[in-house]
């Protein structure tokens, strides 16, 4: 469970970090343009996640994360993999880190499950290609956002994403969302219409309330799952993610592409 001070801390990190590193809004633009997506240089404000691959091997931990996400965002349950909507899910190690795999790796390593989600890249290709700015990188905290009302459903972002992190609503998702006896969906998060693309939003709606992302909170509640997922701001030197990133061996997906993922994995 979150302590009160922790919540307040999370809530204010983004704004504070922006002010600290850039000294006010006038300089924000200059700061942004000076930022190097290939690493190095101070980050203005960027939410990031660290996934502990060892701790997330427990299926109960991963399942709790996925369920929490489905409930928090009213994600439809679609069995057909060709149409399934996925925000956070399992993939095999060899497919998540194709550049790290060699023939001598034991099978259990190759096929180990890894949790994947949108990387909220420093240099997101999906944002670059979107013809309507329906997806954009939010300046104040680096989240790659989606505007479901502006999206025209051209799926160019899905062609551009090197991580397969985006899903298109091929059909009306609403009949396939979990509902209670009264027919109400699980959360206030707006349901989507068919014909638009969606993906993980790092729980922007929960961060606004000072809460951690649903998956992070859920993992922490599973015995043995504490710390399987860590979340914090890269601009805050004291954040848990920064401490882990500066002290442990972590990797990101497909570094050579220069997208600058903000989901890190402890190997």
């Amino acid at each position, binding site marked *: 469970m979150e302590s009160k001070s922790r919540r307040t801390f999370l809530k204010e990190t983004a704004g504070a970090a922006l002010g600290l590193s850039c000294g006010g809004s006038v300089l924000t633009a200059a700061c942004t343009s000076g930022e190097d997506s290939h690493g190095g240089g101070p980050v203005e404000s960027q939410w990031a996640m660290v996934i502990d691959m060892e701790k997330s091997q427990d299926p109960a931990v991963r399942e709790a994360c996925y369920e929490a996400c489905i409930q928090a965002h009213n994600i439809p349950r679609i069995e057909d993999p060709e149409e399934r909507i996925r925000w956070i899910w399992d993939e095999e190690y060899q497919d998540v880190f194709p550049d790290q795999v060699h023939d001598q790796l034991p099978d259990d390593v190759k096929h180990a499950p890894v949790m994947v989600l949108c990387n909220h890249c420093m240099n997101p290709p999906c944002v670059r290609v979107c013809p309507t700015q329906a997806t954009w990188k939010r300046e104040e905290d680096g989240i790659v956002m989606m505007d479901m009302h502006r999206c025209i459903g051209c*799926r160019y972002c899905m062609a551009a994403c090197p991580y397969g992190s985006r899903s298109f609503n091929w059909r009306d998702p609403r009949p396939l969302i979990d509902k209670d006896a009264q027919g109400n969906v699980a959360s206030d998060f707006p349901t989507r219409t068919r014909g638009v693309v969606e993906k993980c939003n790092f729980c922007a709606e929960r961060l606004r309330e000072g809460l951690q992302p649903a998956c992070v909170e859920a993992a922490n509640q599973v015995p043995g799952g504490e710390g399987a997922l860590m979340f914090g701001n890269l601009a805050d030197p004291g954040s848990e993610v920064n401490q882990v990133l500066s002290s442990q061996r972590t990797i990101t997906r497909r570094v050579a592409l220069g997208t600058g993922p903000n989901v890190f994995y402890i190997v």
Partner: protein
Amino acid sequence: MLEAAFRGGKRYWILLGVWGSLILVGLWAWGQQFTQGLTVTGMSQDVTWGIYIAQFTFLVGVAASAVMVVLPYYLHSYKDFGRMVILGEGLAIAAVIMCMLFIFVDMGQPTRVTNVLLHPTLNSMMFWDMLALGGYLALNAVIGMVTFDAEAKEGPPPGWIKPIIILSIPWAVSIHTVTAFLYSGLEARSFWMTAILAPRFLASAFSSGPSLLIILALILRRFTKFDPGEKAIRSLALIVAYAMVVNVFFVGVEFFTAIYSDMPHHTHAFEYLYMGLHGHDALVPWMWTGAALTVTCVTLLLIPKIRNNLNVLGFICAGVIAAIWIEKGVGMVVTGFVPNPLGRITDYSPTGVEIGVTVGVYAIGFMLLTLIYKIVVNVRERMLAA
């Protein structure tokens, strides 16, 4: 002049009837898609673009190829293309409209199409493609109407049209370049991310487009009194021959880079196309058919005696069109999604609804083309009679 479109013989009305009924089929299919969503197509989370975007890509090439008659005629005063130019411009107009329709039918939220203009996004190639195509349509419509109107009145075209014609030449190159940039700028898709994609697109466009124009010219020669000219047709055939050879060379260059470097990311797509990857071989028969057609057509085109024989040229041109259609309309787009970023291979084949919509869009294009050519032929026949 336009009234000619409303008068015609039995054959003309039968032709329009055929296009009309195919358009109805397309409308019905699109209605299904509009009410149920793109779930009625064969596309999936892994293969997010299919036959629509592939036809779009193929037809941008057909549209761009008008430059192959415009450039020699206006820049080099190649007078033999005098009666061919308007046919090229008419084809470009019909092709661009089909391109726009193929983008439209591919959209998940077609009613929001204006968002592209309401929120202009300079960093998106799709925005630039929309501008390039819209501009090209306007250029060809204006140039075609003004020059043809002058010709019908047997006077010279107004002077102000000349700079617009000159502008249309680089503009034609730009539409296919920007279309290639849609693909070649994506680091996620190594099959598309090749600098030679735009040159390749242009080379294949300059072989398939003029081939179609030759077939249309041969049809007009056969069924109307209007003859675009034997010499013009032969010159076009030479252009097709050159462009096809250049296209084969570009494809070969791609093959070399992939196969010699032997990098899995680069070889996988070619394996998928020509041999099948992990048992997925849906495109293999298509690609080998395309390869056989390409080799046959290039060989025949390189022999002057055969190339200049108008009795066989039409068949060779049909072969060229089929080969390029397979290359762009079948293989190019889908293979970019194989394997997907997570190493998965998902097969794609269009559904009946998708094929219905595709046929409908082509029928709209060909109906438009029939109307434009009817007007052109009528005026020309009248001038011949006078």
